[in-house]
Each structure stands twice: as C-alpha cells, then as structure tokens.
C-alpha cells in the first residue's frame, strides 16, 4: 500500500473517531423513543428540542448564565493576564521560575484537590452560591492559560514600539489602544478563546461554589443525563457545543492562516 493511501485511511479513521460520540447525541435529540436493538429510531420528533428551548426546561436561562459567567471570567482574566503576561514576557527578574510554577500550578492541579478547601474559603468570604463567587473560582484555572499565552506574545513584542509611539505624540492609553493591543491582538484573542472555553466547560468548581444556586449548562446537562432523558440530553448537548463551534469558525478565519489556531495557544 502506498504512503498516500495509508495517510488517507488513517485520516478517515481519525475523522470517524472524532465525530462518532457526537452522532448518537444528534440522533437522540430527534428520536421519539429509540429502543434496543433498533439501529435508528422508528419515529422522529422535535419534542426534545421544543422542550429544551422552552422556558420551563431552564436550558435557555442556563445557557445565558454559562455565557455570562464565561464572558465575565474571560474579561477579568484578560485584565489581570495582560500585566502579568507583560511582566513574564518582557522582564527577567529573580524568582521568575518560581512565579511561573505558581502560575502553572492552578491549571495543572485538578479542581477536586482544592474543592473542599475552596468551599470553606468562599463560605468565609460570603461568596458561595453567587455569580461573583463562581466567576472568581473559574479564574483559578483560567488565569494561568491567559497569562502564559500573553507572556509568549509579549516575549515576541519589542516595547520600543511603545516609546516610539509616545514620542510621536500618543498618550499612554493611545499607545495601548493603537500599538500594544493590535500587536499582541492575535494572542489576546486566542487566550480569550481558551479562557472562555475553560470556564464554559467547568463542572466541579461551579457545583462546589455555586451550591446549586448558579445553574450552568453542564449542571443542567448532567441532571438530564442522570435522569435518563436521552433525547433532551442530546438536544442540550448540541446547544452546549454550538457556541464553541461558532467561535472556532470565527477565529479560524481570522487568525490561522495554515496552522490550526488553537495550536498557537498551546505552543510552548
């Protein structure tokens, strides 16, 4: 067999494997009963979608909650990550390795390791069962990604451009707006995409800090899955992955060129 045919076959297998788990979700969302051993449902219906999109299911309000929390987390992470990324990308200072380790730890240590302690801390702060609390908790795994991606961007950025702009009459905020921001813009976009997705996918931290009061989409999805409502679960799952797909298509157009855009955020 030629190399080209091997590549093609591997590609087909890979594509099929990547799509496979999404297929039953999609079918279930349109199924009207789908019993073993039927390969496909005997009857189709829009009931699951109608229910999922109705006010009574709570899916749309969960969607909004998840969106707002992920959006707020991303904005706060950018505001905190920009100066931190600048410090790590542009300066060398004693203890830099330690700072890097401290920054990476929250992304690598699983939420369960800190969840019990965090629960107690947030109770003390009076932040549990609140949106603010959930956003703060989501920042823990998000800030490391944002900061490290921006640090890589600042390491490629020559700050003398800022001095040049200053000398040409730009005030400090104009320098940021017209020089710094556009020059690190692609990385900020990728960092924000990561931040959004990490918050968007968060389950345990929302459960721990939200205390059932902050109902995001993964929590809603889990409760329907645990209740065995496969059709509604399928519909919610598709609603849940839609924003990620839209954002990916949008950013892929803007930043990738040849390379997968997310790979740039993952580059060491």
């Amino acid at each position, binding site marked *: 067999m030629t190399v080209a045919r091997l590549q093609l076959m591997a590609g087909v297998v890979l594509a099929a494997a990547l799509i496979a788990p999404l297929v039953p979700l999609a079918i279930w969302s349109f199924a009207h009963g789908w019993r073993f051993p039927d390969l496909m449902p005997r009857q189709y219906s829009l009931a699951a979608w109608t229910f999922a999109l109705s006010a009574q299911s709570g899916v749309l309000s969960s969607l909004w909650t998840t969106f707002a929390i992920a959006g707020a987390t991303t904005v706060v992470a950018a505001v905190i990550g920009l100066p931190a990324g600048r410090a790590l990308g542009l300066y060398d200072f004693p203890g830099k*390795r330690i700072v890097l380790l401290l920054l990476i730890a929250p*992304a690598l*240590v699983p939420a369960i390791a800190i969840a019990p*302690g965090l629960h107690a801390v947030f109770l003390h702060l009076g932040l549990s069962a609140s949106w603010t609390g959930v956003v703060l908790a989501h920042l823990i795994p998000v800030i490391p990604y944002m900061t490290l991606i921006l640090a890589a961007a600042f390491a490629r950025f020559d700050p003398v451009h800022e001095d040049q702009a200053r000398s040409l009459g730009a005030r400090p905020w104009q320098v940021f707006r017209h020089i710094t921001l556009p020059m690190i813009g692609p990385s900020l976009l990728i960092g924000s995409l990561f931040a959004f997705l990490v918050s968007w996918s968060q389950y345990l931290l929302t459960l721990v800090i939200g205390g059932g009061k902050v109902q995001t989409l993964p929590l809603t999805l889990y409760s329907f899955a645990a209740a065995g409502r496969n059709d509604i679960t399928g519909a919610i799952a598709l609603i849940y992955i839609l924003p990620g797909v839209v954002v990916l298509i949008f950013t892929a157009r803007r930043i990738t060129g040849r390379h997968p855009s997310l790979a740039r955020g993952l580059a060491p």
Partner: protein
Amino acid sequence: MSRRTRPLLLLAPALVLLGGLFFAGLGLGLVRSFRYMPALGLDTPDLAAYAAILQSGTFLASLGLSLWIAAASTVLASILALGTALLLRETFPGRALIGFLVQLNLTIPHVVGAIGILYLVSQSGSFARLAFAAGLVAVPSDFPPLTHDPLAIGIILTYVWKELPFIALILLANLQAIPPGHEAAARSLGAGRWQVLRHVTLPLLMPGLVAASSLVFAFAFGAYEIPLLLGAHAPEALPVATWRGFTAVDLMHRPEAYAMAMIVALVSAVLLALYASFALPRRARP
C-alpha cells in the same frame, strides 16, 4: 519605579488572586486534613485522617483505579496524538477537514464527550446495536460492559477522545517549530524515514510530549464529572470518592475527604515538577 519592582507590580493582581483563592483553598484543605477544625472541637492537629484512609481498602482501590485511568488514558492518547500530529503535518486530501475536527474537539466540554461515549458504548448503545445487527449479541447484557465497569474502559475512551486532539495540537506546534533542515539533513546522511522519526523528530518532540502528557495525566487523574457519569459504584474514582466524602452527612468524615484531596494534590505536585523540568527553560530570556 525600578526595574526590579515593576514586574512584581504587574504580576501582583494575578498572584494575589491565585494566592487568595487557589493557595488559600489548598492551604485550608491541608490544615483540615490534619483534623484541625476548632469549630468541631478538633484543636490538636494529627495524622488520623491519613492513617484512616491509608488503611482503608476502599480508598486504596479508588487511588489505584484513578492511577490506572490516568496512566492508560495518557499512554493511549499520547501514542495516537503523535500519529495524528505527524499525519497533520503532511499534505493529503481532507487534511483541512481533520485539522478542523481536531480543533473542534478541543472546544467540546468533557461532560458532552462523556455522554456521547455513554450512548455509543453502553450495553444498549450504538455499538451494542451494531453487534446485534451483526448477530453477535441477542440481548444488551451479552454486550461486554464498557461503562460502569471495573476496568473503566468508557472513562478511558472519553479521555483518549478528548485529550488526543489536545496533545496532537501541542505536538503539531512543536513539529512546525522544528527547523526544516534537520530532517532533510538526516535523510541525506543516509537515515531512512523511520530512522529519522526515531533519531531526529521524536527526540525534538520529547519535551513537548512530556509536558502535554503530564497535563493530561493530572487531568485524567483528577477530573470529577466523567467518572461520575461513566464510573462503577465500587470502586469509585478518587475524585468522586473525595467529593462524596466531603458532602457526607457525618461531618466527622470530612477530614478524610480533605486528606484524599491532599493526596490528589500530592500526585499533581509530582506531575508539576515533571512538567516544569521539561516545559520551563532554566534560563528565561536575557
């Protein structure tokens, strides 16, 4: 503002926030794992919680299961990701589509992947139905249990499905950073395709692969919602056991949950050290 204090000032918001939340949560968990909870009348720290869980067969089984899940997922995902990255570097029809699917997968939340795998491989799932159509099984219970099973196959499949693209994209970024001359030079020195892969490409990819693998191991070891959906009741994966212990009605069991959380943190610390030794340069930029 001197050149020394400026970076620290810029880092302050991030460090204060992470310190106030992450390290406070970790620290409080550590204190309580020593059974120091004055509010409950426990005011002498001791190691009783650790002694209790280390002597409990249930805990050791949970720990063993989570280590197995993490190890199996990491090894499988790494090998397949390496192949995927090498494939994505080539030009072939459909490459753009696969590149898109790999990235798409990265945006899909784990819990969606877990449910998808559940509907695919459970005893009444799509694969079982295909097996029925092929005449291999008659009833769902004939199909081998791949979810809620002792070997945690469904959980491992979910992690492999989710983390393969993650590792592949890191490796692809590393591959694209390899100067093009290296591999060509090795070929011109008489190395075959496999020898180039074995002696040139793989060693250059190693740091990225180890760094990505330690991230994946830590995640597969500590994630909660996937074993919650796909795992068996006994033994439970460690994260599930930890959170159940914490939310148990009897508050006197909480120190044991804290101790389990600290064990997870300890395993993560080892992985963090591994990650740092491969992914963080000794000397930062001059």
